[in-house]
């Protein structure tokens, strides 16, 4: 540890230098005096004594220098000197310093922010104990068709027999269902799911209190037991230590609490009920999700083979229409299933920030090179005054490093704020219905990623060192007389080739980013221009779950609808109110049907299309036009003739001759007792509406059949018992949120005290479906704007420098009769050539890259000429402006001054 002590003392030696020098001088002076005295005593003359002593002491100054070097750390001392000098230089060129530091900071900040999110969502392990072994089991269709997450009970029952690969599997509701928890002071609707017993094993959820339900309790007719979340336990039940065994009321039925989960933020779920699915069920509705935990050591490929076999078993067990020809089953890593559409979007953003970083580096390199040329003379003078080559290089290097350092610090700050801004914009869902659990609530799980910070700062350091060092070495090598006499300009053609190359690549990168942004802007405007087929303005939408004994019968629902129409309709500001199972653009249910008098074409059916139950006023609330026939009325009840209304797309597809009205069809016949009903007569045709998300997946017009909610039938109501979830739609005269509270109260009174949840406007629903496109578009546009600025700085810098260098030449030209106009044209041409090459290269690269964005685009091709055309025009214009300023300066060169300049 001696060396450490020495080190600390020597660092301490950096201060109090003057005082220490004084001490040493005094000590050496004493030494000399003593020596002289001794010599005199030995018989020398004073003169001789002094001479001998000095001789012996061997050079006072060298001794002092040796002591000085030993006293502190000489390299540290000269470093501090370099830093001080560097700071002075940077302060003297505030424009240069600001541009370099800001450029670096933008590159570093943007990369840190984006990568932090990317690494959390795509790279870091998911927050489940055995995350890498969790797979999603799904149905797979012949190539070209997407695979589906939704699974039926019979499929689950067959698939789960592959126990050689699966340690555990679980079937659960395809999204939290609103569950009414009563039995406290006020009923609340919480997010709950019904899940089979394997759920807790697959996701590795442990309990703070009690236990999870067992496979025994998960059988049909099993006990009413419930597991509640830590949050619900603390919040609603006040952390009651005796909650286990307590009875709570969920959806009007009593459930015994048997477990409280550990605190977890990753599930948006507060209550779990056993699914209690019938192993012999024949219900082929694909209403559930199926996950499995692979046995340790089982690979994904093995799991996929097992799923293929399971699919064939299912085909043998249920011959008939339940599987399409070529349909099979597969397993997908759970992360991929959850991340869904977020992956391409995030990867594209990652690519974009990568380009921003490249651009930042090119710009910094460019500026450093330009500066090195300007400083050639200064360096020559310093060398002439005795600065060693190493010393000069070290000085320049120190300056570059200081710039990088400042850029890095600012970039870190930008990254910190950038992440928060990013997450504030981040859409809540991945676009496929899953919540993105990986970023935590409001993105709390995302933190600054140190790995990427280190990487990015490293890249910038590398750039600064490389492009700061090269010219430094070159400059220090040039012979003194040469660079002094040539006056520090001319020469350097090689370097300006490098600089031209850098500017060209800057322009090219800017083109790539701009093209991406332009395509997304076109996508968004295409999406916003899409007519949804309904009028979303001034419509309030809210969810309700119908639980309680009165809703076991169809009449209960019919009474609630009529009561709601009466109470809500009477509120001032309300025009009409309706109920529908599904919120357009977000929720979908489809059912197979057969057309009477027509030979079945799809198993026993004629087709499988979107199915909605609605209350009579739905079309009026949503302003969906009635094209032919009639809409539903209050007379369409269970006891009257069963009717159905279809949309135009359905009519066109199945009755191309236009004779749909009056035809009869059976919906869901054979799926189970809950769908036993008489054939329905088609009474009306309404306009098409967009039912699936407007966003990335397309949002094509689908055929839809609507049935009256009052005609759902008692078996259907009993089947859903307590989990029938639907949404109220209320059209208001003005902005809908003003009426939100009285509407909620009126609905609660009309339904016997049921709470509503998820109150939104239809405009918000619309905005939500384009959230991802909007998110990426905002970010990409920001990056593109940065890129354009940087490229403009690059062009401007190079041209301004070129004009400065060629002042003499321009002066001579003008003296020989060139007009200012000609000079301007010359400079503009030079800048224009660079821009042209850059734009051309950029367009070629962009054409190659934008096809990776195809999944994010809507209504626009990746090679959209309008987008590319506007990018070329925009960048061309900016390049001309950036070159125009120096060109004007060139025009105003006074030949006399320029020639006399040297």
């Amino acid at each position, binding site marked *: 540890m001696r060396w450490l002590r*020495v080190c600390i*003392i020597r660092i301490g030696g950096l201060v109090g230098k003057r005082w220490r020098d004084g001490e040493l001088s005094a*000590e050496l002076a004493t*030494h000399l005096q003593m020596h002289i005295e001794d010599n005199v005593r030995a018989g020398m003359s004073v003169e001789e004594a002094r001479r001998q002593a000095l001789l012996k002491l061997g050079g006072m100054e060298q*001794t002092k220098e040796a002591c000085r070097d*030993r006293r502190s750390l000489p390299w540290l001392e000269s470093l501090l000197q370099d830093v001080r000098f560097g700071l002075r230089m940077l302060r003297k060129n505030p424009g240069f310093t600001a541009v370099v530091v800001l450029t670096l900071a933008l590159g570093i900040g943007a990369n840190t922010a984006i990568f932090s999110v990317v690494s959390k969502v795509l790279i870091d392990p998911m927050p489940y104990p055995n995350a890498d072994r969790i797979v999603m089991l799904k149905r797979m269709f012949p190539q070209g068709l997407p695979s589906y997450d939704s699974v039926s009970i019979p499929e689950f029952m067959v698939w789960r027999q592959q126990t050689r690969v699966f340690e555990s599997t679980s079937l659960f509701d395809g999204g939290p269902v609103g569950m009414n928890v009563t039995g406290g002071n006020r009923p609340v609707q919480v997010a709950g799911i019904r899940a089979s017993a394997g759920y807790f094993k697959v996701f590795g959820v442990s309990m703070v209190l009690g236990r999870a339900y067992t496979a025994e309790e998960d059988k049909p007719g099993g006990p009413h037991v419930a597991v509640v979340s830590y949050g619900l336990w603390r919040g609603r039940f006040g952390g009651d230590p005796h909650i286990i065994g307590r009875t709570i009321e969920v959806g009007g039925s009593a459930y015994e609490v048997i477990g409280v989960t550990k605190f977890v933020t990753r599930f948006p779920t507060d209550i779990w009920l056993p699914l209690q699915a019938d192993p012999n069920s024949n219900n082929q509705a694909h209403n559930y999700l199926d996950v499995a935990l692979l046995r340790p050591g089982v690979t994904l490929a093995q799991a996929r083979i097992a799923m293929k076999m399971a699919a064939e078993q299912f085909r043998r067990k249920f011959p008939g229409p339940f599987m399409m020809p070529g349909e099979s089953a597969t397993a997908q890593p759970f992360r991929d299933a959850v991340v869904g559409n977020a992956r391409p979007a995030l990867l594209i953003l990652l690519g974009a920030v990568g380009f921003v970083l490249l651009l930042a580096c090119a710009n910094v390199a460019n500026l450093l090179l330009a500066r090195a040329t300007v400083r050639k003379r200064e360096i020559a003078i310093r060398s002439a005054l005795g600065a060693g080559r190493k010393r000069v290089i070290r000085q320049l290097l120190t300056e570059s490093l200081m710039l990088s350092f400042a850029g890095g610090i600012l970039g870190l700050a930008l990254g910190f704020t950038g992440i928060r801004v990013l997450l504030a914009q981040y859409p809540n869902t991945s676009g496929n219905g899953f919540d993105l659990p990986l970023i935590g609530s409001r993105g709390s799980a995302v933190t600054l990623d140190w790995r990427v910070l280190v990487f990015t700062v490293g890249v910038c350091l590398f750039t600064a060192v490389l492009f700061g060092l090269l010219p430094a070495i070159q400059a220090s090598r040039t012979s003194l007389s040469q660079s002094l006499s040539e006056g520090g300009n001319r020469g350097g053609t090689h370097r300006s080739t490098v600089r031209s190359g850098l500017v060209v690549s800057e322009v090219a990168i800017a083109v790539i980013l701009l093209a991406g942004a332009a395509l997304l802007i076109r996508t968004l405007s295409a999406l916003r221009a899409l007519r949804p087929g309904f009028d979303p303005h001034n419509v309030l939408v809210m969810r309700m779950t119908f639980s309680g004994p009165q809703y076991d019968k169809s009449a209960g629902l019919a009474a609630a609808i009529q009561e709601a129409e009466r109470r809500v309709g009477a509120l001032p500001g309300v025009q009409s109110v309706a109920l529908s199972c599904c919120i357009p653009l977000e929720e979908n249910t489809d059912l197979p049907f057969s057309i009477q008098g027509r030979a079945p074409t799809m198993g026993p059916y004629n087709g499988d299309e979107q199915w909605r139950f609605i209350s009579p006023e739905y079309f009026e609330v949503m302003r969906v036009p009635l094209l032919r026939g009639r809409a539903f009325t209050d007379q369409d009840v269970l006891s009257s003739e069963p009717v159905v209304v279809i949309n135009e797309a359905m009519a066109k597809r199945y009755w191309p001759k236009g004779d749909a009205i009056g035809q009869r069809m059976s919906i869901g016949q054979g799926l189970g007792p809950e769908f036993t009903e008489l054939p329905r007569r088609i009474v009306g045709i309404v306009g098409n509406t967009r039912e699936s998300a407007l966003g990335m997946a397309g949002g094509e017009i689908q055929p839809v059949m609507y049935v009256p909610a009052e005609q759902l039938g008692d078996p259907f109501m009993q089947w859903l018992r307590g989990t029938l979830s639907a949404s109220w739609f209320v059209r208001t005269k003005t902005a809908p949120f003003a009426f939100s509270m009285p509407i909620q109260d009126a609905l609660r009174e009309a339904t016997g005290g049921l709470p509503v949840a998820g109150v939104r406007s239809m405009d918000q629903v619309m905005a939500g479906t384009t959230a991802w496109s909007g998110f990426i578009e905002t970010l990409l546009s920001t990056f593109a704007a940065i890129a354009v600025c940087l490229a403009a700085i690059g062009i401007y810098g190079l041209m301004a420098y070129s004009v400065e260098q060629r002042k003499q030449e321009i002066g001579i030209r003008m003296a020989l009769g060139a007009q200012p106009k000609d000079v301007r044209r010359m400079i503009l041409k030079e800048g224009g050539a660079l821009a042209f090459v850059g734009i051309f290269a950029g367009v070629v690269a962009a054409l190659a890259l934008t096809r990776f964005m195809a999944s994010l685009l809507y209504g626009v091709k990746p090679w959209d000429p309008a987008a590319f055309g506007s990018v070329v025009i925009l960048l061309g214009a900016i390049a001309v402006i950036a070159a125009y300023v120096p060109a004007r300066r060139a025009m105003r060169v006074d030949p006399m001054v320029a020639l006399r300049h040297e």
Partner: protein
Amino acid sequence: MGGGKTDVWQGTLALMVLKTLQTMGAMHGYGIARRIEQTSGDRLAVNYGTLYPALLKLEQEGYIQSEWGVSDNNRKAKFYKLTRAGRKQVERETREWEKTTAILARFLSPEGQP
């Protein structure tokens, strides 16, 4: 510095300084130099250019400490004295040195003799 005198060997100067301070107590730089030369029977010449950096190094390492005092002939001078760590260092270095010379002696002595 000719006259058949040998310049002090860099590595050994520190040990000589420490040993001198151990026998003589607190001394100033000039005194140390003189003493080393005398002890060597004037066969060594201390180069002052190396003495003072060596003193500084020893002080940084904590083996000696210095303070201003007054010399025999009433001159203000900086006096160096051994610290406790310095005393230990003398012992350690002496042992090392003895070991080294013993080994060397074996090499240099005529063959066969112990």
